[in-house]
């Protein structure tokens, strides 16, 4: 029984490690403080479920591109 639980835990640990590794690969490769980072954070907060939130984030992104990143 104990061995069975241990085996399960080991499997979960491996899956978690793979997930963390994959997540880091999927992360947006952008430099800190860039407009893309801000857009990513904004979309992450609002989510694409609400399209109006996505538009709000896009408006900020375009302002950042035009204004901040001369």
């Amino acid at each position: 029984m104990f061995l069975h639980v241990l085996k399960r835990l080991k499997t979960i640990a491996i899956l978690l490690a793979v997930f963390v590794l994959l997540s880091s690969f999927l992360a947006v490769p952008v430099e800190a403080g860039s407009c893309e980072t801000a857009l990513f954070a904004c979309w992450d907060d609002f989510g694409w479920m609400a399209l109006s939130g996505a538009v709000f984030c896009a408006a900020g992104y375009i302002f950042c591109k035009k204004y901040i990143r001369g």
Partner: protein
Amino acid sequence: MIERKSLLLFLLFVALSISQGLLEAKELRKVSLEEVLSIGRLDDDTLFQWAGVAVDPQGNIYLSDAMDYSLKRFDSQGNLIKKAGGKGQGPGEFMAPRLLDCSENYLYATDQDFRGLKVFDRELNFVRNIMIKMLVSDLRILSDSEIAVTSLPMLEKPAVFIFDQEGKLVREIKYSDRDSPLMMDVVSFDFDQERNLYLAYNFQDRIEKWSKTGEKLWSINLLKVKKVKKKKVSSFVVPTELVFKDVAIDGEGNLFVLGGHFSQNRSCDVYVLNPEGKHLATFTLPDTSHCIYIDGKNCLYSRANQGITLKKFRMDYVYQ
């Protein structure tokens, strides 16, 4: 005697025709800038990060200042006359003040996250909101009953929408029917005196002229940019380089387009085109800018010191 008069009239007609022809052949070749006014310095707190600019026929300058959530009115000499607004979502308040334009009577302002326009009188007293149910990405006031805006083409098809003073849609000029990739159809726009529409795509190398009845008159690729870089952000691919940042039209009908990241001098080069889309000249602003504005006296306004300073230039035209 009659023959002599006829001959004189004929010669006069010929002379007038030639002079008219010469005038028509006159073409702008160069624009030089002379700084005539500067508002805001690095060592004062006049401006923090101005975003929008408008100038009334008397030469008063209105600026939206994003960092202190305000509108500011300066006289033609650059003296601060009044400040209004403040942070908030109440009447006349802003969370992120952006674009400005003015009519004969009113000043119109956008707030980045507000679906509509905020209207002030020339003394910066808040008058009312105009609710138009879309986030405004560019704005031109043709008159108090013709308010032209674009929104981000994500919820609507790409179009310039014209609303009346009540926020009722009067007409729209659709400039694209296709479903473009995200943000690719975002434009800056302006109208000439005949109400022809000029568009400069922010993320594409494309400048267009549309008639007031909504027909495309011409479309050009000015910078020969083949591809704009894109990046995957979250689950979506977005363009990361701006081709054009803003457009403005002078009193003679010339189109001024501020270049972005593909220009030789990033965010400084301004391309001048005639109403037929012919590239006439390019000049360079002394500092990077996010926008350009041309007033009724053909003075050009742009940004310096990353938004702490507004520069006003007199434009001198050299003709061939």
